[in-house]
């Protein structure tokens, strides 16, 4: 038996400095609000993961940051500029892996595509591009239209990383990659972070893969953020409490935290609560519960807890 309680986590990351912000961003498709007054804050130097169900607006948001789609209301600031006015200028400073895995022009060889990109980006690091190409076992003689989804993704990652941009926007970067290449990509991203000063926004359904790389989390649903906070705060304050309780237990009036999700059987409860660990434990104990375990949630679990709470509202 499970009942859910709507709760939102903090979404204000303070005063910055931010590499990317949006304020009140609205994007409609017909009568549907794909982005519904979104206040995104990506701190400079952060590795920010955007999680949320299909249709939550993740790709629309990233494409808006790239200046690829227009929006109806709100403001967008990417690296100090508005991509709606200065699209090309803003895009030059971004390494972008799009949701669409088709890279380049169909007839173009991969080698030609890389040269093309090198001319476009003054900061292109040819030696780095060569090393990435070798690690990804990319054949420069292949024509783009003959690439498989996974091969194409690898080419897109080289294109995004090799100019060492101040901002990386990665939309499902490991999509279509097999296990070995996915793992290699995570290692490449770790090294890239060690070698380059950059801010990263990753949108993914495979949060568990990138979780150790990530330091900020945004949970998106129906074009709105349900939470936007540093990962260590998420792990420190969104906790799952397992407790044994007497028959017919009602729970405390004042918990010292906000219940995100409740479930459990007759004499054992499992509550997910946003709040101070000691205060919540005390609250449960004083109400007669024997708290057996308190554990943090993975980003995946946190997203599921928040999203199922949201859907029940």
């Amino acid at each position: 038996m499970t009942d859910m309680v709507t709760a939102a986590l903090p979404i204000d990351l303070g005063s910055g400095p931010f590499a990317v912000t949006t304020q009140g961003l609205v994007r409609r498709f017909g009568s549907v609000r794909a982005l519904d007054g979104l206040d995104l804050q990506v701190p400079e130097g952060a590795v920010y993961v955007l999680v949320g169900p299909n249709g939550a607006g993740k790709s629309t948001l990233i494409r808006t940051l790239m200046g690829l789609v227009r929006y109806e209301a709100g403001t967008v600031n990417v690296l100090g500029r508005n991509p709606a006015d200065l699209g090309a200028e803003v895009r030059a400073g971004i390494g972008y892996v799009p949701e669409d895995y088709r890279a380049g022009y169909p007839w173009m060889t991969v080698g030609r595509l890389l040269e093309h990109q090198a001319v476009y980006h003054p900061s292109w690091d040819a030696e780095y591009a060569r090393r990435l190409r070798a690690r990804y076992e990319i054949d420069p003689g292949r024509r783009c239209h003959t690439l498989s989804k996974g091969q194409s993704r690898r080419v897109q990652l080289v294109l995004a990383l090799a100019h060492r941009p101040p901002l990386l926007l990665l939309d499902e970067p490991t999509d279509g990659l097999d296990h070995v290449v996915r793992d290699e990509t995570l290692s490449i991203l770790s090294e890239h972070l060690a070698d380059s000063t950059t801010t990263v926004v990753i949108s993914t359904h495979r949060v568990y893969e990138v979780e150790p790389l990530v330091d900020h989390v945004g949970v998106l649903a129906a074009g709105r953020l349900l939470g936007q906070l540093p990962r260590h705060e998420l792990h420190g304050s969104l906790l799952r409490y397992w407790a044994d309780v007497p028959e017919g237990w009602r729970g405390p009036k004042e918990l010292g935290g906000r219940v995100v999700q409740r479930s459990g059987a007759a004499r054992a409860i499992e509550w997910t609560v946003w709040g101070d660990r000691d205060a919540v434990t005390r609250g449960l104990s004083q109400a007669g519960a024997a708290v057996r375990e308190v554990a943090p949630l993975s980003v995946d679990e946190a997203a599921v807890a928040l999203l199922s709470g949201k859907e029940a509202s």
Partner: protein
Amino acid sequence: MKIRLSQADGRPLYVQIMDAVRSGLVRGSLRPEDPLPSVRDLSSSLRVNPRTVSQAYAELERDGVVQVRHGKGTFVAPGVRPEEKERPRLAREVARRALADASRNGLALADLMVALREVEGGGARGDGRKEDGR
């Protein structure tokens, strides 16, 4: 230095890295003056954010376990005395985890103590890693 991280562990990744270094010292696989992997290499092999490794090294330096030598890397501190400090500290950490596990299963400290002696008495055979001097 071999480090395994677990997201299911519940402790922050930097704490797990710190404990892996401490455990290396206690087991003797890490000794004073030994170099630790660079932040770049360790983060790459663990697939973690380099800042997580930097944070672990910085905390270990604050605890006097390692020394960051600029331009050269991170080394186990020359004066580190694993038997006096790291061993009891690691033991407390293991104890905390054991107690949490016991509590989750509805067991008290007394149950755990009895069981530990029983298992140690009958279950130590074939375990090649019996600790010396104990």
